[in-house]
């Protein structure tokens, strides 16, 4: 019993979540040159929205940011889409650095691609920003079993906040979940498994399912050990 109690942390995990309200910048691009120009002048908030917040939307994950998605689907420039998809925003120290990385890929593509095709009217890239609301999801977890239940219960906006958005807040670019497992529960191995998930290759629902699975295995192991002792 003491062993089980010891696994209940004094630092419960408080689930929070975020929701965004979309705000138009009024700027739109019909081709790659226009896209490049606007990326060079648009607000940091807009760059943030079209890259970091990509995973807050429910995409069919062929790309990793809105620019790549548009280049692939609307311009039908698959190679450019692939190159833009390979930019990792979490490796960039600032929005300015990320902006430069995007411009560099587009510049190199523009140098290679002979013509710059236009999209059909209505299919342009519309630059948006967001106002982000962050608020408690009203769910707490004091141990892994509660965490497992909560993970199934919270909205996708909560998974996004703790798994993606956290990388901008948490030192070392970690997610909140693994940080809690490591520091509050002292489960370094479990934390490492969560940190090994490639954030770009999954939707929030896949992230939820994957973390649930590895936490379920951990809880099962804990229960079996505890059961013998009890």
């Amino acid at each position: 019993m003491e062993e089980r109690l010891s696994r209940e942390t004094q630092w419960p995990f408080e689930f929070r979540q975020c929701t965004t309200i979309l705000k138009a910048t009024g700027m739109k691009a019909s081709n790659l040159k226009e896209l490049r120009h606007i990326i060079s002048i648009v607000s940091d908030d807009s760059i943030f929205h079209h890259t970091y917040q990509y995973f807050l939307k429910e995409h069919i994950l062929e790309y990793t940011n809105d620019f790549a998605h548009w280049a692939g689907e609307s311009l039908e420039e698959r190679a450019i889409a692939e190159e833009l998809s390979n930019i990792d925003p979490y490796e960039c120290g600032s929005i300015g650095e990320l902006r430069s990385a995007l411009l560099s890929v587009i510049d190199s593509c523009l140098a290679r691609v002979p013509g710059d095709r236009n999209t059909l009217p209505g299919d342009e890239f519309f630059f948006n920003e967001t106002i982000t609301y962050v608020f408690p999801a009203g769910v707490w977890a004091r141990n892994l079993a509660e965490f497992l239940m909560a993970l199934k219960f919270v909205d996708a906006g909560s998974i996004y906040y703790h798994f993606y958005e956290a990388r901008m807040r948490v030192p070392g670019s970690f997610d909140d979940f693994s940080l809690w497992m490591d520091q509050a529960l002292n489960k370094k191995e479990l934390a490492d498994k969560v940190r090994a998930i490639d954030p770009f290759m999954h939707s929030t629902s896949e992230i939820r399912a994957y973390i649930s699975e590895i936490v379920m295995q951990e809880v099962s192991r804990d229960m079996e050990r505890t059961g013998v002792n009890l």
Partner: protein
Amino acid sequence: MIERYSGISPKGDLILLRKLADRLADKTFLHINSTREGGGVAEILQRMIPIMSSLGIKARWDVITGDDRFFDMTKKVHNALQGYPETIDEDMWDHHRAVNETNATLLDLEADATIIHDPQPLPLINFRKNGVWIWRCHIDVSNPQKDVFGEIGKYVSKFDAALYSVSRFAGGMSRNEFIVSPSIDPLAEKNRELGRNEIEETARRLDIPLDRPVVLQVSRFDRFKDPTGVIMAYRKVKKYNDCVLVLAGSPATDDPEGAAVLNEVRQFASNDPDVRILLLPPFSDKDINALQRIAAVILQKSLKEGFGLTVTEGMWKGKPVIGGAAGGIPLQITHGVTGFLVHSIEGTAFRIRQLLNNSDMAGRMGQQAREYVRRHFLITRQVRDYLAVWYALSEGMKSLIEL
């Protein structure tokens, strides 16, 4: 009242709604449009005002009045903003202003936040007293007639913010332009679950056969909804699959062209007994609900569209919807996943046949459609967005707000 949405709407929407309402409690929120019945705007306001009131916000809904000349003119404005050529002279704009000036003397415009819906009541901004003023544009203004857009823009620029249903409608008329999709109320008569008896009663009364597949389009009788194109698509399908086409709509008091279009459609159908044209009285919500549940396939073959709430309604009934790739329809229908997007009469006919001949695919698409609507297009999300925009404006438009 908000508790009734628990288990239906996403939890996060309900939590944020309460947190925003706590901060805006006892403040007044005024909505103004030009019709109490007919069309999506009136429908959603009927449902939204009680929700806001139940959250402790003093919500009001007022309607401006006008003569036939006013509504003829505003219909032309509506058409011109959607790209249909119209001539609107200075006298007409003067009348637009004058009618709103009269309304301004009759309405109580004192409110902490005011939302003006669509172009009809726009000049009321000239009589602004206090609070935040927001223009809510429900129509597709992505390719407007320039002169009309310019006149409308003169009013819109005086607002604190403008709301559009889709990104590409945002036209740079206001310094703060937000994208807020419209929504449906899952608890409304039009969307609630219906018993078998209720569905059969509607079918009997409206003479809709239940032993053959029904293809349905619910919309105003408006050329932009392409009702004759729907009949042409049905005729192509009919060569291969026995089915019944139902075109159902209600008259709207702010749409003087409706009767003329209805006559055109009746003539075009030329007494085909399997084409049922139903002019339903306003508030025929239960009948529309039943028709959508009876339908095997739902169409919204719009050529121009604001958002297309009939698409949302059909998807919520778990039905595959075939929609014209116009306005907000592509925002709802992910082609091949939550329905089909079409660009022609031929495409519409082909997709109807595909769905009539593959019930597994139709069922799967319908379920994915319903879940997509649950996450994105229920009324609780729209109330949340209205309150979130209002609160953000009052908080100085910070990009991150922690509650």
